[in-house]
């Protein structure tokens, strides 16, 4: 099977498992909603203040929920040595990374389809007029999170204390996409008066490209043996 077919097979298998068990999506949804709530409780019921920092709260909720789901990226392969089986498939092992990356991206995007409207309601923000640019920013930001996250999840898979090692390595690496996504989202919500959102979108694109290339290139080294 060629590379695209293999990638599609992984994505299809993982999505099928997810659709049938709904193991990840429901817990992610509940968790991310709770993160939004906890922030609101911690900051207080000051709606104008919450609205001003809504983009930050939203993306922190996405990053935390992402950490939760990313750490489970390879869980379905651990029983019965699934990852070893995949790795022993002849040819380039990068299809594992690309497939898992696509799966994580789809799962997080599905979450955001619910989370963005939820934030709009909770913080009383008008999102509908900006739906298209927001969708683009969400896609680029989530791609960055998934690209780095899927890679570091593979790298920390066999480490002791991996629950703490994934955030320890991933969060510093996620500073650029977080800054890019938060600022672009906030600017778009404010009507993007000076057109500055484009600068942050460029940062997101640059990060996504660099990390995608480097992570795809290094992936075989992360999972060899």
């Amino acid at each position, binding site marked *: 099977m060629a590379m695209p077919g293999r990638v599609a097979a992984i994505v299809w298998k993982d999505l099928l498992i997810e659709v049938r068990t709904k193991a990840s999506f429901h817990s992610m949804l509940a968790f991310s909603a709770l993160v939004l709530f906890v922030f609101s409780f911690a900051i207080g019921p000051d709606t104008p203040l919450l609205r001003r920092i809504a983009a930050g709260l939203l993306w922190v909720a996405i990053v935390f929920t992402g950490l939760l789901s990313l750490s489970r990226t390879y869980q379905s392969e651990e029983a019965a040595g699934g990852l070893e089986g995949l790795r022993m498939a002849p040819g380039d092992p990068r299809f594992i990374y690309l497939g898992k990356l696509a799966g994580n991206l789809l799962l997080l995007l599905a979450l955001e389809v619910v989370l963005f409207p939820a934030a709009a309601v909770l913080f009383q923000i008008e999102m509908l007029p900006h739906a298209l640019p927001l969708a683009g920013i969400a896609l680029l930001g989530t791609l960055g999170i998934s690209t780095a996250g899927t890679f570091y999840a593979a790298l920390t898979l066999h480490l002791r204390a991996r629950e703490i090692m994934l955030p320890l390595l991933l969060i510093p690496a996620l500073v650029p996409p977080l800054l890019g996504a938060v600022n672009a989202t906030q600017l778009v919500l404010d009507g993007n008066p000076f057109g500055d959102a484009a600068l942050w979108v460029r940062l997101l694109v640059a990060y996504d490209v660099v990390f995608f290339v480097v992570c795809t290139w290094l992936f075989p*080294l992360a999972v060899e043996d």
Partner: protein
Amino acid sequence: MGRGASFIGWPGALALVVMAVGSFIGLFVVGADVEMGEVQRLMYVHVPAAWTAFVAFFAVFIGSVLYLVQRDERADRVAASAAEVGVVFISLTLATGMLWGKPTWGVWWTWDPRLTTTALLLAVFVGYLAVRGFADDPERRARWSAIVGILGFVQVPIVYLSVVWWRSIHQPPSSPRSVSSDILGTWMLNFAAFLLVFAWLTARRARAARLEAELETRMAYD
């Protein structure tokens, strides 16, 4: 005590001498800053320490690439040792920066791009060392930490760029034209001293790592 000479070693002795001279000049010979006064002397530690930390980070990157290409354990040991010594220098950079920032800017900490990037660099170094601490098998430990070393290095420019856009109040980086020649000379002297200290500590640490590895192998066979 026949090994006394190699215990200190000539780079160590040289580092000691250069550091003593550099500190003396920085403290007593160069005049106090016109605007900022005596506190500005901290810069004779801060700036060379920062430069040395970046050299250390680059050494980790080179060692990591070399390890992945050649699978030579020596490259891994040098990278790991440079990372440990790098943590010392980057902590020194942050500590002296804070001590300088309080009287100068009025705050210990500010979200300035270079400050923030330096703190994140420390986090990457710590992550690198944590990976080494949590991996059991020596080959895997070397391979995984080398990947972290490379990715950490690659992300620094992007992190820096993103934080610059985010906010900036730091003075523009000092260039040879923006500082007087005696300040620059003292920086260069102290940079040379710190580089020697860095090289010496890294070599000592790498040697200790080699002995540790030998001991591990011997214990495994006994």
